[in-house]
């Protein structure tokens, strides 16, 4: 253990420089986020992740945001354990019928002001699962209002980070 600690002390941080926020995401958000909400939140957002039936590919990459190379928390973005502590719901998956009620109830449990970010191709419109009798028609926005889509199958951590930074810019610029 001591050797490991010493090695890491000497080699310095592995965390990489932040990417620029995604332009497309900024444009999508511009019309969504109102000034009053921006002032209330400052520069920090609490995120609650909801898997609405994804293949778990998106979860792997969302997890990777927390590793030392991307270090999400340095931006004031952090994952919380309850929707009642959250500003943002990060929703993945095509929304299966079996997850629909859970997603709705999670949304209702999240205090205002709140935003929903739909992550991945199937969260947008069902993706490869579009047309399945076991999923809702139209992805996450058919169940709860969506403020931002981050495309990709799954989006890479860098793409996720760009989208989330755009959200942070969007809600904190006054």
């Amino acid at each position, binding site marked *: 253990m001591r050797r490991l600690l010493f090695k*890491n002390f000497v080699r310095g941080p592995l965390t990489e420089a932040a990417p620029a926020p995604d332009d497309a995401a900024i444009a999508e958000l511009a019309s969504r986020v109102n000034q009053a909400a921006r002032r209330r939140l400052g520069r920090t957002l609490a995120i609650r992740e909801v898997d609405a039936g994804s293949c778990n*590919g998106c979860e792997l990459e969302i997890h990777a945001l927390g590793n030392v190379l991307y270090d999400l928390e340095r931006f004031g973005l952090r994952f919380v354990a309850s929707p009642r502590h959250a500003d943002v719901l990060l929703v993945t998956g095509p929304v299966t019928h079996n997850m629909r009620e859970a997603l709705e109830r999670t949304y209702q449990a999240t205090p205002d002001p709140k935003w929903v970010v739909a992550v991945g191709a199937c969260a947008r419109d069902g993706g490869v699962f579009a047309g399945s009798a076991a999923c809702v028609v139209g992805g996450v926005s058919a169940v709860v209002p969506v403020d931002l889509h981050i495309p990709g199958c799954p989006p890479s951590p860098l793409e996720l980070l760009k989208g989330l930074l755009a959200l942070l810019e969007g809600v904190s610029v006054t």
Partner: protein
Amino acid sequence: MNWSRSIVDREAWQAAAARLHAGELCLLGLWGEPGFVHMAVMQSASNECSVLSLACEGNRYPSVGRLHPPALRLERAARDLYGLEPEGLADTRPWLRHSGVYPFLPAEGESLHQIPVGPVHAGIIEPGHFRFTASGETVVRLEARLGYAHKGVEALMAGASLERAAQLAARVSGDSTVAFSLAYARAVEAALALEAAPRAVWLRALMAELERLANHLGDIGAVCNDAALSIMHAQCGQLREQVLRAAQACFGHRLMMDCVIPGGVLRDLPADGERLLSALVALVRKEFPDLVEVYDNTASLKDRTVDTGILSPALARQFAAGGYVGRASGRNFDARRAPGYAPYDRLPFEVPVVQAGDVNARVWIRIREVEQSLALIQAMLPQLPAGPIHVALAAQSVTGAREGVALVEGFRGDILAWVRIGAGGRVERCHLRDPSWFQWPLLEAAIEGNIVADFPLCNKSFNCSYSGHDL
């Protein structure tokens, strides 16, 4: 390897169920389609595999789960999806089809309380519901309710083109996308009686070992994180990220999704691919031993993992538990070795097996498998055959129905793929069975008598797939 194939009558079906019960056969899968039920089994002694089919008169068939509990949830799922009624099935609650109130199994006694968890969990994980019945801190019974991630994959596959079905197979369980794509591709190739391009066979194995490496590294760190040793999580997460970046550079996708296709692979290694992978192996070899040393010598961590969540070898054997779950409980099985498939028949590797069956044993199996995967990648790189990476399928010229089946070792365990291709080269029916089908019930057994606070550790040490199970 040749699979034997037979259409059986009710007597032969019941005889197979009795042999499963007696432990002479292992259950590899059980699935339905309108009017038929199918079962894949393996001889426990010789690893010979076969597929049995039974016509269901009046949509009924003799239940296998009645004698052999590992078939229970598979039969409940086939009942939900195809309306096939297993005669004598003890548990008639729906499984993948959710409607109304789900009656959990009763647990009665003095001062018991229930803890409902999920389907939306506190962490970034997949949806599922766990119902704990606890006496104080001790878990008396855990019952999982799954199916929240049920996307109707099998129904979408029916009638799909081979390419479209390949995309769906790649998204059955994202963490095993290479293994599922490989299982599907091998089943399709078996059905069409063709061999994948030789170079592709080796590139597929490279991808499969990278996937195993990435998942094992991530999960070893995550188990330690659940015991509050976050430095292991940070260090293992960093190594996992390097594996994914190498995969991106070599195959164009961090998880290598859609890279394995029937007939071969989608893209070849870039010019510097071998150098990148050699560098990756060298990096992990340099960094990983220090992490193993921390795991092995941190008493507070070992205090949590040793003797926690013990899975008995008898249960692992009965459920034919694949992967590290089985191998940590004495089940010496790895589909890469037996029944086996190329190129592993030409590569030396060890299959670690221990008997203890606790969280610690599962972590150690994964540590050993990291080392084996590194050695396999290193051994493969200098002997990659030259040549094309894909052969044409000519699936359009298929006339009658053709069947193929494959068993592939994913990081989590053996994945079964069975496909029937019809006229015009379209998928008539495809079944993909995730190892988690036989591991989820074992988690319920392993947690019994442990404290509630150790559930995350036990759960992570199994790391079953929700999506792969729910289909």
